[in-house]
């Protein structure tokens, strides 16, 4: 009941889906449509998971007055205010909801990632070392690609963008194809393990 039935559902549906992939007939498509309409009806509830876990993590912090608990108040307040504004005034253009998105969420998440440019620069200076011949080749290839991508590289010599393009088109292609085939096989293997019930960690521990 706790583990067996969900596992049976996965395996049963899984094999039906294997069949569906090979059978184009109307019946097979109808089965798929049925599954879609059901999973569509299930999907909206998943968001509750996210909300609850956020409330649990930050709620406990506030309750226990853990260090920096005040920031948890910020998170929960922001969540409630944003969600509320969406329900109260709608999600159209010109509503507070979209204002929050455009002026709070958008700039911050963009900035968060742009911090990395600074880290890369400092890592370039402090950590990127040609420790081995392999790492040296890696850095050299990186130099050429970096210069090949910018106007200055082309201005120095036409040779630079062309070599950069060659690196991308030839050795990079071979590398990515070799790795991708392996990863593709790994993905297939993982799907297969789930399908056969070998892999069941996704069901969580008891």
């Amino acid at each position, binding site marked *: 009941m706790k583990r067996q039935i969900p596992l049976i559902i996965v395996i049963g549906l899984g094999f039906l889906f294997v069949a569906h992939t090979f059978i*184009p007939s109307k019946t097979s498509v109808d089965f798929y449509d049925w599954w879609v309409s059901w999973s569509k009806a299930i999907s909206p509830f998943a968001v509750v998971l996210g909300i609850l876990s956020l409330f649990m993590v930050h709620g406990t912090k506030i309750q226990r007055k853990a260090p920096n608990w005040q920031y948890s108040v910020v998170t929960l307040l922001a969540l409630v205010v944003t969600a509320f504004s969406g329900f109260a005034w709608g999600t159209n253009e*010109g509503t507070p909801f979209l204002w929050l998105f455009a002026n709070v969420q958008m700039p911050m998440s963009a900035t968060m990632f742009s911090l990395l440019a600074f880290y890369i620069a400092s890592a370039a200076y402090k950590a990127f070392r040609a420790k081995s011949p392999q790492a040296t080749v890696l850095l050299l290839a990186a130099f050429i690609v970096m210069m090949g991508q910018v106007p200055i590289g082309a201005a120095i010599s036409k040779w630079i963008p062309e070599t950069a393009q060659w690196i991308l088109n030839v050795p990079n292609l071979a590398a990515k194809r070799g790795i991708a085939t392996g990863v593709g096989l*790994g993905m297939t*293997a993982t799907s297969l393990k789930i399908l056969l019930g070998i892999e069941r*960690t996704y069901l969580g521990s008891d």
Partner: protein
Amino acid sequence: MKVNLNQKGILVVLTLIIAFSLPYLSFAKANPADYIVQNLKVSDVPEDGGGGLIVSWAPLPKERRIIEYRVYRGVNADTLFYIGKIDVNLKTGIAGDSVFFYDSGWLGFVDLESPARLKEEKGKRSDRTLYREFPRDMRVNGPELNENYVVLGIGQEKEYFHHAEKVERETDEGESEVYSGLRLNQFDAMYKQLHADKEYFYTVVAVDEARHYYPEAEPASGIPRENSPEKPKDLMAVFVEDANRLQFEWKLPVEPDPVNGYTVWMLAKEDEADFELYKAEQKLKEKNKLARLEDSEIAEMETVYQNPAFQIFGAESSVYTDLIHGSVDIIDGVISYNGNDYSVAPADLEDYDFIFAFEGREFNSWSNYAEISRTTSADLPFVQPINENTVFIVTDRIEDKGDYNTISWGKPIVTLTNTTYTNEKRSKLLINYEYVTNKEYKVKKILFKIYDEAGSLIKEINEYYQDNQITVKLPEGADPHQSLRVEITLTCKPDLGDYVILQDLKFNDFTRALAPTKELYINGIDVSQYNYYIYKRNYTDKVFRLSKKFGPTQREYNDNISHTNNFSLLVGEYDLEKNLYLVNPSFSLYREEGETEVQRGSMISTNIWRSEADKQITDIQQNIEKYTIMADTIAVEDKENVLNYVEQLKSQLAAIESDPILAQAAQITDDKKRLTFLRNQRNIAKRAFEYRMVLTDDKGHFTSMDIYVNPEGTNEDERYAFFGGVGTNHFYPRSNWFKWNMFPALLATLLFGGLVFVMIKKARTTDLYIRPIAGIQEIDNAIGRATEMGRPILFVPGLSSIGDVATLAGLSILGRVAKKAAEYDTKILCPVRDYIVLPIAQEIIKEAHYEAGRPDSYDKNSAFFITTAQFAFVAGVNGIMLREKTATNFYMGMFWAEALIMTETGSGTGAIQIAGTDAVTQIPFFITTCDYTLIGEELYAASAYLAREPLMLGTLKGQDYLKLIITIFIIAGTLLSTLHLTFLINAFPDK
């Protein structure tokens, strides 16, 4: 001032509240009068069928920051409903000096998502009431049906056939009328159109960026009128001399609504002046008609002029019967149309003008005069038949769910698309080509012969593997800009016979490259100007209708024949008590075979309700009796009409009584089964199509290809028993049971599954070999080093959730590291980002200590949760590295952009760092900043290597052997294809 943490927190919350409330405080009050829309006008849509109005107004200045204009409509000026809006971009505003809103065609009336009840619109109103959309409430929308709007309901066919309720109504004459009643939720949607000649009122409300609704403008009104159709574009008229046939080609109308038919007329050139007078008078009559509608006191205009032109061709038009080709035969100097004979000598055709007209309900629209152009059959487009038996073929598309027919024609074709010089000297030329084939032919190889301007052969290239490009090296010293001629021959299965394609490459000054010319010769004939048109019809169509147009280089078309059948019916009545919308229960089945091949006969219909179907018959019988008696009593001049009508009724009755489908249906006693049977038959009638094609230069020179008939086609399926021709000339798509292009995937999947299964079994009994992996062997040394230095070890099992393969691999390596660390009695720190991973990590470390025999040294806080936020997590890990001075850092699992920040700090503290990830974008950073890195699959292998668990090891081994097989296939395939043997490569799917 020193602030402590608590005060900081309060400060922060306060800032938040202020930040959130700022936007609401900032809206200043404005004078509402400045926001009323000016210059509101309503006008009739020209050249339409009488169902459209245009609302226009002057936009407000940009400074008002309007984001939308909402439009309302009603049948009186005091009650208006929201019907739609125009969005405005705040930055640009509206550029022109008016905004237009088209209230024409079928726009939404009500559907399930309409509000449940009537709601007033926001904003202050004076005496007028503005409502939001029409509600679902039938008390509000019911009276609007028929009365104020033409309403069309659309829904799933099964609702109409199986779930309708029978509703009987008494008409004004006291007769009972039967309807099918449907609830709103049985419709997918209801659409409405305006009634012609009825007055409608409109107003507009402006909404600004703070979503403030301003007062509405004074309503304006308009009346939609039926107009004559648009003026047709020029007619193409061609006389094929040896066949004595006139051929016509025209263009479809943009607005088909007011067009009743497509007609061609002949006019003796000497009558042109009379015809102009006639046309002018007709225009005035139309104006007069519209004026009379406005003012009933205006008198009707007298007709003075007769039309001197005579009609020689006519075809019915509707939205569903698109036709642009017509032909008329001249037999013995006579053209017959509609019972009239006109004698026209073929030699005198130049004395006539040819005119095309869209036939309107009352007034026609005429094209300019067209001159005849003469040609012969030999000069008409040459149709390359697909094989010796037929010109084109129609088949069921394989590997689908039964919703496509495939139409294939002609022989494979290769066209050059582009060229590029690949070196500075311009001596090397890359030519791109494309080839198109159909299901009849399989292309084996393509031979290109390239000739220079002088006509001598430069190069011959055999394309065994078609990668859509060939490279040509021009001879030393040759002019790189000279024209080239490319001769293309194909080797196909089955053999193509005599078939040569020619295309030239000419230097283009603009692109500064050789460009393929438009002309494309097949066996010496330039085919580039000819287009293919596909016409089709099913058992309910009266005539063939245009389905699709293709250029000269297409060879196949998949015609979609959807499974989903909808009903669309006018909704004029409603039943408030039962909450039902009433529709006509009579439905059409199919058309009888017509007298001519061109046109089918009348539609056979029946009724949802059996009683009504029976009543239909008795009604006709009664009418026959009634009119036969009447014929004896009335005046002689009317008698003929009445008798004709009686004949018509009699043949109608005969048709119904002799119809096999209706007869079969009548025998089914169960009502539900009867309807299922009828619905199925109707589906066949609607989904079985016959096809014909036309090849034309779009100027009237066209060759018609006959309806495709499959001589071997039969149909044993008894469902089609009532329809002659399904399988031979009508094609009904079938549902298929196996997708052959997925066959290699099936084999590979089975092989893989088998390998994994075998290897898992083997792993249970024997110890399987896995080669040593560099990073793994260093693990022990690195732990040893930490022990020597007396510092802790850091282990980060990735930032992803438990669902990620990399996380699972990382955790199993953690087990091994923790065990070694426990043996050496070295402290291990394991920060975790995902709270589901946390208990699993704790469990693993605990178990490792037990296994190492050191349960006493297990610290519950070895694994701990930091935070879910990506960068905050990294900040936490960095803090640990600096404070605890970890000697060895492991990063095993899935990492994103944050990886670099951790390893940089780690290399700064001088720790030994070992990383493993399958995140390809992060591997380079690990390689440059860490001492050892497990790349991609090495991570999975490492986890199996260390775990030594049969299930994991077996899968890894299975994967490994499949990889070996793949490698062997790749080597073999490459060698073979290099040697021009393409069977292996072609056995693999290309997309």
